[in-house]
């Protein structure tokens, strides 16, 4: 892979590993370095409110003496601090009891470089460009007599992993995101839009502003609707939010131990069971141009394309290194990028066809586990819920609390857009379509706007 030898992160990692190996004689040493430059501007009530600009390098030294292990981290990169952080990890490893499940270091690997994850134009964005972009949003909001709040952030990061068994990995990437919430002056309407990408050029500020303004205006004075089970069209932010719980529940060990949705009554797992329609495929692939990501995880495992759901069947569970070795499987590593493949609908509007009565949902809020056995999640709709009647979006409606499982959501999905988009999310990168699903459990009403 191509490694930027001049990168300060690479230099820090090499220095830290050299120093740590001198200190930890006869033990295993792994060094992880992350270097991040990020800047942001926040706005609310049509004005800039706060801002940030920081460059930071964090060094983590992990030490294992036999099966006793510990780690220490610092953001100080001078030689004396690198020495101290290695000494600290060593001192802790020395007094730690053996962890019989500790795995030896991952040795030398070949990683597929993901150069597409780094975009030079994104590195060059500054405070003036952020302020100008926010000016665009504010002027659109003001023209529509709305109040806009939002967040614009961009950054560049490098990660390096190196260890005493010969592993070396380097990855760099950029990110940019903007989200906007526009609210009506009377407080009865609220609309949200956002974009996230590794390329700042994909963050189409005028378009984000236009969608947020349009949704806010159309969502004013919503009417109350009874809770119940509804056919829903979920926009990408809502789809990604609920699917993140499915991904988090995929741990193979928990399934084998009988404490997971993926455990079968009486023993075994649901691996291979076809729970979803043929159209559902959920996968991770860091080399996918839509969601380029690191080719290795924090343990140095090479991340290979993995289908979690393949044409409706549960195709993979996530294996850590210990459990994979015990069960005779390959470890999957921890993927940060995910794609739910799209369907056949040319446009989101096509999903409306045939819906007698349903809801269009923009995004979810405050999603939390409610019941682990069925991956039932609670949360609320937010910033644009609309009634669908006879295939038409007819009126804004009040928000709901839902108690629902992503499993049920996928099982009842019967149409998706062909196009998938990167949904702003709370972690990792998600590329998903807009979906139509049925019997979605809106459990109670919320007066929140």
């Amino acid at each position: 892979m191509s490694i930027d030898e001049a990168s300060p992160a690479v230099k820090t990692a090499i220095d830290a590993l050299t120093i740590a190996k001198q200190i930890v004689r006869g033990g295993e040493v792994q060094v992880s370095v992350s270097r991040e430059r990020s800047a942001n501007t926040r706005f609310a009530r049509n004005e800039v409110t706060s801002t940030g600009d920081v460059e930071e390098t964090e060094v983590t030294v992990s030490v294992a003496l036999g099966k006793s292990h510990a780690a220490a981290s610092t953001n100080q990169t001078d030689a004396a601090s690198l020495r101290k952080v290695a000494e600290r990890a060593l001192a802790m490893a020395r007094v730690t009891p053996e962890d019989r499940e500790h795995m030896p270091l991952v040795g030398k690997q070949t990683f597929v470089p993901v150069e597409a994850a780094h975009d030079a134009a994104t590195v060059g964005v500054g405070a003036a460009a952020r302020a100008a972009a926010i000016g665009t949003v504010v002027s659109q909001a003001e023209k529509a007599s709305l109040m806009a709040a939002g967040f614009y952030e961009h950054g560049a990061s490098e990660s390096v992993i190196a260890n005493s068994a010969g592993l070396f990995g380097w990855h760099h990437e950029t990110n940019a995101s903007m989200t906007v919430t526009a609210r009506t002056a009377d407080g009865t309407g609220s609309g949200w839009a956002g974009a996230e990408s590794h390329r700042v050029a994909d963050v189409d500020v005028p378009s984000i502003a236009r969608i947020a303004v349009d949704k806010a205006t159309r969502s004013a004075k919503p009417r109350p609707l009874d809770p119940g089970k509804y056919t829903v069209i979920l926009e990408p932010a809502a789809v990604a939010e609920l699917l993140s719980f499915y991904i988090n529940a995929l741990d193979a060990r928990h399934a084998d131990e009988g404490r997971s949705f993926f455990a079968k009554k009486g023993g075994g797992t649901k691996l291979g069971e076809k729970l979803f329609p043929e159209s559902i495929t959920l996968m991770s692939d860091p080399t996918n141009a839509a969601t380029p990501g690191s080719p290795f995880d924090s343990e140095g495992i090479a991340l290979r394309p993995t289908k979690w759901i393949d044409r409706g069947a549960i195709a993979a569970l996530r294996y850590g290194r210990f459990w994979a070795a015990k069960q005779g499987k390959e470890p999957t590593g921890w993927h940060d990028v995910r794609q739910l493949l799209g369907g056949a609908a040319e446009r989101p509007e096509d999903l409306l066809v045939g819906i007698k009565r349903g809801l269009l949902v923009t995004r979810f809020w405050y999603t939390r586990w409610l019941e682990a056995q069925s991956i039932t999640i609670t949360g609320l709709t937010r910033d644009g819920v609309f009634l669908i009647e006879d295939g038409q979006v007819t009126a804004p409606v009040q928000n709901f609390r839902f108690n629902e499982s992503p499993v049920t959501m996928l099982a009842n999905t019967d149409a998706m857009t062909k196009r998938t988009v990167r949904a702003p999310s709370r972690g990792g990168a998600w590329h998903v379509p807009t979906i139509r699903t049925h019997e979605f459990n809106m459990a109670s009403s919320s007066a929140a706007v």
Partner: protein
Amino acid sequence: MTVSRREVLLTGASSAAALAAASCTPSPIVAPPRVGTGDDRLAGIVERALDAARKAGATYADARIVRRRWERIVTREDLVVGLHDTESYGVGVRVLAGGAWGFAATSRVDERDAEKAAIRAVEIARANAKIVRHPVELAPITARKATWSTELRIDPFKVVLGEKIELLLELWRAVRDIPEVKHGNAHIELLGEWKLFGSTDGALLEQSITRVGAGFEVTAIDNAHGDFVTRRHEIPPWQAGWEYLLESSLRKDARGIGDDAVKKLRAPSVEPKKYDLVLAPSNLWLTIHESVGHPTELDRALGYEANFAGTSFATPEKLGKMKYASSIVTIYADKTTKGGLATCGFDDDGEETQRWDLVKDGLFVGYQTTREQAGWIGEKRSRGTAYAQDYKSFPFQRMPNVSLAPGPKEIGIDDLVAATDDGVLVTGDGSWSIDHQRYNFQFGGQMFWKIEKGKIAGPLRDVAYQSNSPEFWASCDMIGGAKSWRLNGALHDGKGEPSQSNAVSHGCPPARFKQVNVINTRAKSAHPEKREP
């Protein structure tokens, strides 16, 4: 492998270096010289940053040098699976220029880099000033030169590592012979925050804050029925020294946690309907946090958090007028509560910390403010609630400790149960979620007990209560006395973009709430409901 306390200590004594480590966890990677020790290098760096900001045209500036330590020890059953010590150090400079904020930070704590950060912060402020219509105005302050630190007897960062590990392994040993209890996860978390704050108003404040937390959760499994439950210990994190954990019920209660898990696994599933709820302090704290703490943040109420955490039903025109709760309810904010996670001497604006009412005898009477916000509601002085999680974060309004005042009668949880005919007692916190204006909430718990005719009739499972903040607080008809008041809290409460973590406590006695909607969390099948073709 099970390791005894003796073995851990002996292992630690096997070499001179390890002995040093075992008897005294390694010293910080950076050890900032304390103010008043004659070494004023750091005060000089702060002054240099402030000077540079002034020269670049800032009308106000503050600089914070912050060292943050985070130690986490994690066990699973009899294994130590994680031991990680993290330290960050740096200087953040916040400035006002042209009426707008600018902020920049660096992890290199020296005069040259602090000066560069100050100049960059002023440049950013000037870029932001171009789209500012309402210049920031700060409430006046009495600038002080002072120090403050957590009251503690034993610095947890200096405690023998083996002792910490042993404490966690002991918890698993207490439950491992219970057949249904197959798994146990435990952890200790220590947070150390040292900071030096200086401002162009003349403040110079050094503070050292130490927070300790521990957790223990077991999983009981019934494989034959494909069923499992978890039960988590209810011990709260505190701002305190190591002695807090030693003197707590962490060890004493461990066996009971395992027994509870089995009771919960076999308990009948709750019948969903309205019940009178008796909420223990270990559950009610989180409900206070979400339904009173967050709604009374002034920035949120005015729309400053609209894009992320949302707004609030408690808007300024309702101040002094809205009935927030029944007349027996008084809820106050207090950044001086002993043991409170948000307690400190001065906030990150340099304002002295205070106690004040948010809800007085049921009426909405107060907000949480910073220097920037006080003037927004016509107040002359900030409530002192600005906070930034570390050197690289922008300080903004964060929740102080928010607590429910005890009732006048010295009654406890048994009295509340005895007075209840058809109810549910909830202890510990579980699933929690609230809407973005803080109306509709739904909370779970750890243990649920059916109350029939004033007596505990047995455990229940699958309980969550769902209500609306003003309706819920209006239904409060009994509050325990001062002796039943307990301080719970969380080490990591998120707010803002980028999200920052704030540690905050909530004190309360047990309280009763009439006719609250209880749902059954397993009412839906564990298997997907296939749609009828």
